[in-house]
């Protein structure tokens, strides 16, 4: 495995080329180009703010209370932007190998770089949305801490990247052999969105009497919950994940990476024949 990691590292240039190509293609074809990266989260935030913030009054669950700096709107935005990174990657993951079949069948490079490039492209897209986030932070008076910027943000990004990569390798490989995956992904995308405390603060589940204990445990077994709580913690220190949640998040991420990678390696031979 170490030698494969080295091989991928030696081919990091190829990854960056693929990422740049994908971004170029994406932004070249549309008139608004880069603006789309911003418009999509903005539109989503608007809709969710209307439904959950104004109608269902979800803001009572915002960590740090109703008048926390930034309020529910910042809570929404700071979760939605990294969510779009994850859901975009998840949506593309089944085709991560298939779309590159021409390159894969003619060029000798470690095949891992294709899922890696897919996740990285989406990650760069996410970085591009940071200006939007900052505008909201300043406009809404959001506040952060050193701990938030130096610990929680990098940690959230690293963990999310690893988790997404594991998922992508797993689904991309399976989908070459059995095409059902593409359908499952659409359902997963929806379920995980509501299960990961992006629009509904996790306190509203964890502190509620409506749900039985087993459900709360199950809820916390989702690594994405921890990941998005970390993203929120950057702006809402009260939202810091508990030790239990951190262990399930990091444990789950490591497990996902291992599952993704082993699946990828074990099925690589058959995948190459199918492509």
């Amino acid at each position: 495995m170490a030698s494969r990691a080295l091989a991928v590292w030696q081919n990091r240039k190829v990854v960056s080329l693929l990422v740049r190509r994908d971004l170029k293609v994406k932004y070249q074809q549309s008139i608004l180009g880069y603006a789309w990266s911003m418009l999509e989260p903005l539109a989503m935030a608007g809709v969710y703010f209307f439904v959950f913030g104004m109608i269902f009054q979800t803001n009572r669950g915002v960590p740090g209370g109703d008048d926390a700096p930034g309020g529910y709107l910042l809570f929404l935005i700071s979760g939605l932007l990294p969510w779009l990174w994850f859901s975009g990657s998840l949506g593309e993951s089944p085709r991560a190998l298939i779309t590159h079949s021409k390159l894969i069948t003619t060029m000798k490079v470690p095949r891992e770089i294709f899922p890696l490039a897919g996740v990285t492209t989406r990650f760069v897209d996410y970085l591009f949305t940071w200006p939007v986030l900052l505008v909201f932070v300043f406009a809404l008076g959001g506040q952060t801490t050193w701990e938030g910027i130096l610990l929680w943000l990098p940690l959230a990004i690293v963990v999310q990247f690893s988790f997404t990569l594991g998922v992508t390798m797993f689904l991309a490989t399976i989908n070459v052999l059995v095409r059902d995956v593409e359908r499952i992904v659409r359902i997963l995308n929806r379920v995980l969105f509501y299960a990961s405390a992006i629009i509904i603060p996790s306190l509203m589940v964890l502190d509620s009497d409506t749900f039985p204990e087993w459900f709360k445990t199950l809820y916390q077994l989702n690594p994405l919950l921890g990941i998005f709580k970390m993203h929120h913690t950057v702006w809402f220190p009260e939202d810091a994940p508990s030790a239990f949640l951190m262990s399930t998040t990091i444990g789950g991420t490591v497990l996902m990476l291992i599952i993704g990678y082993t699946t990828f390696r074990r099925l690589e031979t058959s995948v190459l024949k199918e492509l």
Partner: protein
Amino acid sequence: MAQPVIEAKGLGVKFAVNRRRKRSLREMFIHGTKRDPNAGSTDFWPLRDVSFEIGEGECVGIVGKNGTGKSTLLKLIAGVLIPDEGEVTVHGKVAPLLELRAGFNDQLTGRENVNLVGSLHGMTPQQLEDRFEQIVDFAEIEERFIDTPVRHYSSGMKVRLGFALISQLEHPVMLVDEVLAVGDKSFKRKCYEAIDRMLENNRTMVLVSHNEGDLRRFCGRGLYIKDGLLALDTDIESALSAYNEDTQAEIDARKNNKNKKKKNNNDNNDDDGDEKAA
């Protein structure tokens, strides 16, 4: 022979044939192996037990009927297929001319594609800049088209650009799969010259082709692959004549069969005629 550049030991690849369809997840997880729709399928070995060594500067032609695993063999050497048996070692980088348009993205322009695919194959930006003119010249693509998205190119243009680019790579090993069949006469001549130049530079080449002229022209050695096995490993003339003999034998056999059938039919007709006459 000097240190071999390509070493193959007992190479084998298997494909599952008779696979009616891909299994769905439900079948995989819930029914296990019981309801596998491919249960009746058998393994098929397009290539098996192939061993050879190719030294530096050699040009080796691979001949054989369609579907006997020639392209599979090239893919194994290129490292884009993983063998199920045996192993193949290649010392040095490989410039694969397996499928020329490979890697070109339809949305990007010719220039962007050349830069992208060139760097994917390990060319430095400096090399690319130096050779860009040459590549475009070679491909005979007019100045005004080079900044047009590749999706508007004719298939000939794409192939020419691909060949022009790959032939600029300085990798020690070249794999060529039937690509000389494309292109018009004048382009073909240029390809020949380019390949000659590469061979002069002591580069190793493996060529798959059905064109005996091409094979005789470039190759010193021939591998004849028959039914997935390496039948002969000799000079190109012997390989070609063995291949031709087998082909001739097959044609004769077919003809004989046909004749026999015809004869049988004729006999029957004769019988009918006789009966009527009687």
